[in-house]
């Protein structure tokens, strides 16, 4: 039943791309999330407003719509600017567009995750840092950041699992990820079910592996904390 007729390698190649898109967009979203969280908790009204608009809009629009909007709309915008400036056609690579879009979307969720985690760090610890004469950034990197990881992890892990599965959307913008290759191979040999099952299994491999990594990280950052 599970005869892949030589298409296994193609799906595995897609698997590699899926993992690459997922990890890169995770890095982008983590970065954006940290910036967003700090902005949301900052004293500056402008920073708070920008971060607020970002999380409200991005979390309110379906991922697929955003993906199409940024990829196709972005290309059209670039074309229009190009025509106006008299440039030749400039291609936005689907890999970059897809990775940036997913990173951009999940940055909004990460913002909320990190904001909650920062708020969970006891105020007194941060004040202690200031009392020792550390600057704002020093306090953040030496005290707030290590202490918040433990609080952020459960929700961070959640976001990551959803993000990994969201990468399936990049097939719509012409990227040959695992889902695209599985679909193409499946329809070619007329066994779509077999190939989508394989794709589902490989997604499980990704999520199961990350579960292990998350548990390990959690253990490390919870050292010194008594279990309730």
């Amino acid at each position: 039943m599970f005869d892949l007729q030589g298409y296994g390698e193609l799906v595995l190649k897609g698997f590699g791309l899926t993992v690459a898109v997922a990890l890169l967009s995770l890095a982008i979203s983590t970065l954006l999330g940290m910036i967003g969280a700090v902005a949301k908790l900052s004293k500056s009204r402008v920073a708070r407003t920008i971060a607020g608009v970002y999380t409200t809009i991005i979390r309110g629009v379906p991922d697929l719509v955003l993906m199409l909007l940024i990829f196709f709309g972005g290309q059209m915008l670039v074309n229009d600017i190009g025509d106006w400036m008299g440039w030749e056609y400039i291609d936005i690579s689907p890999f970059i567009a897809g990775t940036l879009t997913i990173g951009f979307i999940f940055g909004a969720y990460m913002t909320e995750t990190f904001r909650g985690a920062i708020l969970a760090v006891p105020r007194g610890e941060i004040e202690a840092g200031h009392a020792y004469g550390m600057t704002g950034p020093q306090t953040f990197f030496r005290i707030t950041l290590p202490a918040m990881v433990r609080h952020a992890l459960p929700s961070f892990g959640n976001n990551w699992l959803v993000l990994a599965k969201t990468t399936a959307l990049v097939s719509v913008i012409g990227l040959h990820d695992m889902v695209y290759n599985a679909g193409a191979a499946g329809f070619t040999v007329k066994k779509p079910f077999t190939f989508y099952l394989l794709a589902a299994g490989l997604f499980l491999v990704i999520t199961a592996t990350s579960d292990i990594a998350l548990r390990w990280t959690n253990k490390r950052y919870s050292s010194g904390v008594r279990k309730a």
Partner: protein
Amino acid sequence: MRKLIATLFVLALALAGGQADAKEWKKIRIGVEGAYPPFSSIKPDGTLEGFDIDIAWALCKQMGAECDLVSQDWDGMIPALLARKYDAIIASMSITPERKEKVAFTRKYYNTPAKFARRKGSGIEITAAGLKGKTVAVQRATTHDNFITAEFGDTVKIKRYATQDEAYLDAAAGRIDVLLADSMAMLDGFLNTDTGKDFEFVGPGYSDPKYFGEGAGIAIRKNNADLVEQFNAAIDAIRADGTYKKINDKYFDFDVYGEPTS
């Protein structure tokens, strides 16, 4: 927010590296699909093959153009064309009035006819008398449904199904005498499978544009009328010099072009 998006675009641009083409039609990027055998499918090494693909290369050779085939998921097919990800779509796209509002089409490059299939040994003929009282299966609200209802509606019993597959299954279960469907779809999806082994084609192919539309064309952005003309001329040329027939015979044992256009 605006600024952020703008920044991201600039970043994307910088990373993509300004990759530019000459704008006269010596270089053409063509959008294809890859999951619609035998018209387009993917080989184990990831390259494409199929009728659409061969036609695309033949047309490019005819036009003396340097072509790049871009495979794209069906859902994003027309948006990607409009966004200039490629300049033409050769993906078995039927010419329909709705699509014509968004894009321009060349003339058809194929038009698979609709055909009847009967149970082997039943001897049913496709005439008003031969079909009298027989049960005909079609997919609901399709061109085939319209055709059978208008042409044979008062002599046959029509059974309409939500999907083509349901019609096949009911035919295999013995509740159907005759099916009407797209010949290619039926050949690949039914007659050549185990489910359809008791059925066979009968009668002529039907491709009256009144019912079945104009066939599959090459979609091109509306402001590129020159490219439409270039493709039309190339389609005529490969029809005339036998290239088309060679490709046709590689995949089909009948002429998929259908009726010649006037």
